[in-house]
C-alpha cells in the first residue's frame, strides 16, 4: 500500500466536499442541530403539569395536614394546579366533587385529580401519636386519579406528591422516617440525562453521515465510470478504500468535535476522561461505516436505491445501541442483536470515557471491537472490488 496514493484519494474526497458548500455546511450543521434539539428536549425536566385537587379534609382545631401538603405542591414547579374543589357546606356530596374532578382528567384537560379524603388530618395526627405503639387508625390517604397514557408525566406527578408528603411530615409533625437511603456516586457525580445521551448522539451522527456519504459516493463512482478509470491507474483497490476511510473518518471526527463543543458550551456536558480517546472511538467507527456503505453500494444501482439503505442501518442502531436508553431497557430477546451493532460499542466506549473518566485500559474491548469491525469492512470492500474484474 502506497501512502501517497491513499492520501491522493483521501484529498480528492475531501476536496469534493469542500466544493459542495451545501453538503459541507450540512455536515457541520447537522450534528449541531441534533445535539441542540436533543439537548433542549430531553435535557429539561417536566414542569407545569395540569392537575386538579379535591380537598375533602375537614382538618382539626389547630391544623390541616392537607393544606400543608397543598402549599408544598403549589411551591414546586412540577404541578400546575388548575383548581381546588372543596365541599361548600357540611354534608355536601363528596362523591360528586371527586367525580367532577375525575371528569376533567377523562376529558383530557388535566393529567390527574389529587384527592385528600375527609379524615386526612385526623388520620395523620393519630398515626403520629401512635408511633412506637400499635396503630389505632389507618394513615392519611391521598388518592391520585391519574391519566397514565404518558408514563413519564404520570411518574413525575406521583413522585412530586410523594416527596411533598414526606417533606410535610418532617416539617409539620417533626417525624423523621426511621430509615434513610443515602446515595454516594462512584461515577457520574452531577451527571444528568444529557451527559448520558450526548455520547450516543455523537456516535449516531458520525455513523449516519459516514455511511451516507460513502454509499452515495461509491454509487456515483460506479455509475460515472470514475472507479473504472481509477482502477486502470496504479492505485490498488485497497488504497482507494483506505483513502475513503481516512477522509470519511475525518469527517466523522469534525462532527464529533462540533457535538462535543456544543454539548459542553450549551449544556455543560462533562468530559471526565480524555476527549482524544472519544475522538479515536468515533474515527474508527466512521472508518468502519465507510466500509459498510461501500459494500452496500455494490448492491445499489443508483443513488435513489442507496438512500433506501439508510433506515435499514439507522433504525437498529438508534433502537438497539443504547443511544437514548440503556441496553438493559432493550428486550432480552433482542439484546444479543445489540452486540452486533457497532454503534453499541462506540456509545458504550464514549460514555465510559466521558462520564466515568475511563482510559484505554478500561475501554480496550470497545476499541478492539470497533477496530475489528473497521478492518473487516475495509477488507471485504477491497475484496468485493477485486472480484468485479
Amino acid at each position, binding site marked *: 500500500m502506497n501512502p501517497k496514493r491513499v492520501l491522493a484519494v483521501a484529498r*480528492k474526497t475531501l*476536496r469534493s466536499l469542500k*466544493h459542495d458548500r451545501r453538503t459541507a455546511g450540512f455536515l457541520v450543521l447537522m450534528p449541531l442541530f441534533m445535539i441542540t434539539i436533543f439537548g433542549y428536549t430531553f435535557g429539561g425536566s417536566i414542569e407545569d403539569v395540569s392537575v386538579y385537587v379535591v380537598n375533602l379534609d375537614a382538618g382539626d382545631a389547630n391544623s390541616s395536614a392537607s393544606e400543608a401538603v397543598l402549599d408544598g405542591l403549589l411551591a414546586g414547579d412540577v404541578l400546575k394546579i388548575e383548581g381546588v374543589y372543596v365541599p361548600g357546606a357540611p354534608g355536601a356530596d363528596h362523591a360528586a366533587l371527586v367525580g367532577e374532578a375525575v371528569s376533567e382528567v377523562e376529558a383530557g384537560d388535566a393529567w390527574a385529580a389529587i384527592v385528600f379524603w375527609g379524615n386526612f388530618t385526623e388520620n395523620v395526627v393519630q398515626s403520629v401519636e401512635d408511633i412506637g405503639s400499635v396503630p389505632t387508625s389507618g394513615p392519611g390517604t391521598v388518592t391520585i386519579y391519574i391519566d397514565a397514557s404518558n408514563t413519564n408525566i404520570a411518574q413525575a406527578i406521583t413522585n412530586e406528591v410523594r416527596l411533598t408528603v414526606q417533606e410535610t411530615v418532617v416539617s409539620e409533625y417533626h417525624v423523621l422516617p426511621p430509615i434513610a437511603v443515602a446515595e454516594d456516586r462512584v461515577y457520574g457525580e452531577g451527571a444528568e440525562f444529557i451527559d448520558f445521551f450526548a455520547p450516543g448522539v455523537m456516535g449516531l451522527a458520525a455513523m449516519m453521515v459516514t455511511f451516507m456519504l460513502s454509499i452515495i459516493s461509491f454509487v456515483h463512482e460506479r455509475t*460515472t465510470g470514475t472507479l473504472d*478509470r481509477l*482502477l486502470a491507474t496504479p*492505485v490498488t483497490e485497497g488504497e482507494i478504500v483506505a483513502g475513503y476511510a481516512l477522509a470519511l473518518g475525518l469527517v466523522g471526527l469534525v462532527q464529533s468535535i462540533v457535538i462535543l463543543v456544543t454539548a459542553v458550551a450549551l449544556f455543560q456536558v462533562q468530559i471526565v476522561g480524555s476527549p482524544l480517546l472519544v475522538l479515536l472511538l468515533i474515527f474508527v467507527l466512521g472508518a468502519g461505516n465507510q466500509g459498510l456503505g461501500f459494500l452496500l453500494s455494490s448492491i445499489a444501482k443508483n443513488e435513489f436505491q442507496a438512500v433506501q439503505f439508510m433506515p435499514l442501518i439507522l433504525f437498529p442502531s438508534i433502537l438497539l445501541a443504547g443511544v437514548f436508553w440503556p441496553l438493559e431497557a432493550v428486550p432480552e430477546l433482542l439484546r444479543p442483536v445489540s452486540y452486533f451493532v457497532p454503534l453499541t460499542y462506540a456509545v458504550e466506549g464514549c460514555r465510559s470515557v466521558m462520564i466515568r473518566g475511563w482510559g484505554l485500559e478500561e475501554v480496550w474491548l470497545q476499541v478492539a471491537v470497533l477496530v475489528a469491525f473497521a478492518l473487516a469492512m475495509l477488507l471485504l470492500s477491497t475484496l468485493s472490488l477485486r472480484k468485479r474484474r
Partner: protein
Amino acid sequence: MRKAEKGEDGSGDGGRAVETNGLRKEFGELVAVSGLDLSMPKGILYGMIGPNGSGKTTAIKMLVGRLRPTGGTARVLGEAVPIVERVADIGYMPQEMAIYTDLTVSENLQLFGSLYSMEPGEYSRREASLLSMVDLEGRRDSLVSQLSGGMKHRVSLACTMVHDPEVLFLDEPTVGVDPELRAGFWQHFADLKARGRTVIITTHYMDEAVRCDLVGMMRQGRMIAEGAPRRLMEDTSTSNLEDAFLEYSRRDAR
C-alpha cells in the same frame, strides 16, 4: 477474417504495443469478444471501428486490465494483462466521461498525476502544457460541472495524458463531440503519434478513422477486416470506410 495487406506496420522497432491471441470474453450466454487476434506495432494511430455492441469497449477494457478475459491471451508493451509492472505506461480514457465533476480541472489532473506517483514539481510543469494542449488554460480552477460537454471531454483526455503514457487507449473519445472539436482531437492524436506514442481509438464514426494508420473492423465480437484505411477501401472498391465496413459485413455474413 479477411486481412487486407498491411502497409506500414511491422516497423521492427522491437516489441509490439498490443498483441492478442484468441482473446475472448463472455458475459454468461453473451459472447462479447470472440477470438480476437491483434498485433499493433508501436508508434501508430490504430482505429478500432464497428457499430455499438460489436465488442470494442469490452476489448479495450480487457487490454487495460479492467475485465478479465474468459480465454486467450493479451499483451500490452510485452506484458501479459492485467499489467502490473507497466501500468503507469498506459493511459485509459473510458467511454463515459469518468471525471470528477465536483472537482476543478486542476484537481482532476492532480489526482491522476499523484496516482501515477508524479512529484509535485514534475506535475506542475506538466499541467501547464497539458492545459494548453487541450485549450483549457483559462479554466484551470473551474469546477468541471460548470464546463460545457466539449470541455469536459477535453478534461477527460487530459486526465488520460497527465503521466505522458506510452500507449493510450481511448474509448469513443469523439462521441458527442462537435465537428470542430473533433478535428482538434484528431490533431492531438496525430501530435501524440508524432511524439512516438501509440494511440488506440475506438469509434463508431467510421469515416474519421481514415486518419488512422491501421484500422480494425469489429462485428459481433470479431475482427472482420484489418489494414490501412486506403487498402481497405481499395479492397472493397469503396470510397469511404463506412461503405467498406458494410461490404466486409456483407462478405462476413455470407
